[in-house]
């Protein structure tokens, strides 16, 4: 026993001493996520992206906070007239308020982006986790399937799929676009998940848990998933930006949202032919779209840098 007490006594001074190699000042228990947050807080790009994302999401949920005008109140007599009163950006070909329509367009973009990304995330998580965890023939089959989906030309498949899914003319196409983007966009997320699951699976702490007799469910949920999810989430953040851009692309091509839906893609598509006469109805939705996509991608990048273990 004396040895043990001696050992205890030796280490006690350190307990009070500052922790070695890591932030010496703070002594509170901190997880990796807390460390990442401490990092993010000091990152200007993160704050710019976060503020933009908050504004955009607020715009999507409560567009009336930003404009009191009705985006559907269009009068042809105001076609292409300049800014007046609350219509800061002027009027488009149909005589609709460009500012109001741009604000209201955020909802479709964010809705499609978020839901399509969630769908991709679920599919990608299932595929990536199973391929990575089970390995062997499961991995072989799933990985080849991922390759096949990845090999499908995106625009071609999207056109076919979206057309197929939205044959009902009453439908404004939101569900069709979400499903199309979700089903075609999960592959990179699945691949990232697979490789980080494989990396986590071979860690010693997983071996240690197996040695204790832990079953597959515990290994996956407690040990592998928490240690492999970070890069997956980052990929999804970036995918969110891409999905918003893709929605605009599909809508521009006339196979995305339609009917009376308001979206940046539709606005850009409609304003295209008159760009020489009236550029503003094209420019403003484009600027909003670009800024939104950029904000999400920057956010994803900043989060990735904060979680990147190589920088720790």
């Amino acid at each position: 026993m004396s040895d043990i007490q001696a050992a205890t006594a030796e280490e006690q001074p350190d307990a009070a001493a500052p922790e070695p190699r890591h932030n010496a000042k703070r002594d509170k228990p901190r997880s990796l996520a807390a460390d990442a947050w401490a990092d993010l807080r000091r990152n200007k790009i993160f704050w710019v992206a976060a503020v933009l994302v908050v504004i955009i999401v607020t715009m999507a949920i409560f567009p009336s906070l930003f404009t009191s005008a009705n985006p559907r109140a269009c009068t042809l007599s105001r076609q292409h007239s300049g800014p007046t009163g609350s219509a800061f950006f002027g009027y488009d070909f149909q005589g609709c308020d460009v500012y109001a329509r741009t604000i209201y367009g955020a909802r479709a973009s964010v809705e499609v982006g978020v839901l399509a990304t969630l769908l991709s995330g679920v599919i990608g998580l299932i595929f990536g986790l199973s391929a990575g965890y089970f390995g062997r023939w499961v991995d072989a089959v799933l990985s080849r399937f991922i390759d096949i989906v990845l090999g499908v030309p995106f625009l071609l498949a999207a056109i076919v799929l979206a057309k197929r899914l939205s044959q009902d003319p009453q439908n404004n196409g939101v569900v069709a676009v979400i499903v199309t983007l979700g089903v075609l966009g999960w592959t990179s997320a699945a691949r990232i998940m697979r490789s980080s699951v494989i990396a986590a699976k071979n860690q010693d702490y997983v071996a240690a848990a197996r040695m204790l007799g832990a079953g597959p469910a515990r290994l996956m949920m407690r040990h592998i998933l928490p240690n492999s999810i970070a890069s997956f989430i980052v990929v999804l953040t970036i995918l969110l930006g891409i999905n918003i851009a893709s929605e605009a692309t599909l809508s521009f091509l006339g196979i995305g949202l339609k009917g009376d839906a308001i979206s940046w893609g539709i606005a850009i598509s409609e304003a295209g032919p008159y760009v020489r006469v009236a550029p503003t109805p094209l420019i403003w939705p484009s600027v909003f779209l670009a800024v939104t996509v950029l904000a999400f991608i920057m956010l994803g990048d900043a989060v990735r840098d904060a979680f990147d273990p190589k920088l720790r």
Partner: protein
Amino acid sequence: MSDVVLETKGLVKHFPITRGIVFQSKVGAVRAVDGVDLQLNRGETLGVVGESGCGKSTLAKLLVGLEKPTSGEINVRGEDMVRLKGRDLRRARRHIQMVLQDPYTSLNPRMTVGDIVGEPFEIHPDVTPRSGRTKAVQDLLDIVGLNPDHVNRYPHQFSGGQRQRIGIARALALKPEIIVCDEPVSALDVSIQAQVINLLEGLQDELGLSYIFIAHDLSVVRHISDRVAVMYLGKIVEAGGDVAIYEQPTHPYTQALLSAVPVPDPRLRGQRDQIVLEGDVPSPANPPSGCRFRTRCWKAQDICAQEEPKLEIRDRSGHPSACHFAEAREMFASG
């Protein structure tokens, strides 16, 4: 020798070398562990030494059930672990636990120290009632010399030596009789190594543990072991008490290995007769016929290629030695 807590008989692990992904075909096998018999007595430390690729880490994994042996038996308290399944296996595993080499990768970075040390109780809920678990975890931290109030900290807030203590606390949670230590101090700095070695020795006296201590550092193994087994290419080539192995080794490989270890005393410089082995260890996928050491051995004769020497007590070797020409060689006088 009645009080044997662990015994392996003819333990073999071959890793198949395969080609193809979906349709695999076996093209060979890496003979990582190739017929190992060993016994561990209660309260004893058995050191296993050998160079990288000799199969000592695979042996550790077999003993704790991380790998399934190709053939052979692992008897823990009279039960063959290899045959056990399901609940019985889980219960039997409690008796044999392991301390891993790398304290930086062996602890889950997303779990607190309390969760890590308490995980054994969650997997084996009948060991400690739920209400007593926090107390049990704190007691374990106290035993290994950590502050019990640090249960809510994360591994990265500890130094390497402290992390290794956490790993030891986790291994002790289920009150095992046997602990397999796979290079437990080789990732640590010299001044920290001594702390962890002393802790392991103290715990052994206190709790009556039996250790299998696997390491490549022969000095550390000598310090902690009662008996030593020397491995080369998946086989034990020599086994015996620590004095027998270190002072009168009879297998040429053991002699070469020991003579290569630098001794921290400059006065001995040039006075030790160093045996420098030529060449590299052959591939375990294609080991030499007969004696596996013959390709690098200065004593090798025709018989070494034809007949595999058994690990047994010989005319000129008072302890088991797998060499046809086993003969003691004085290495170090006891200090």
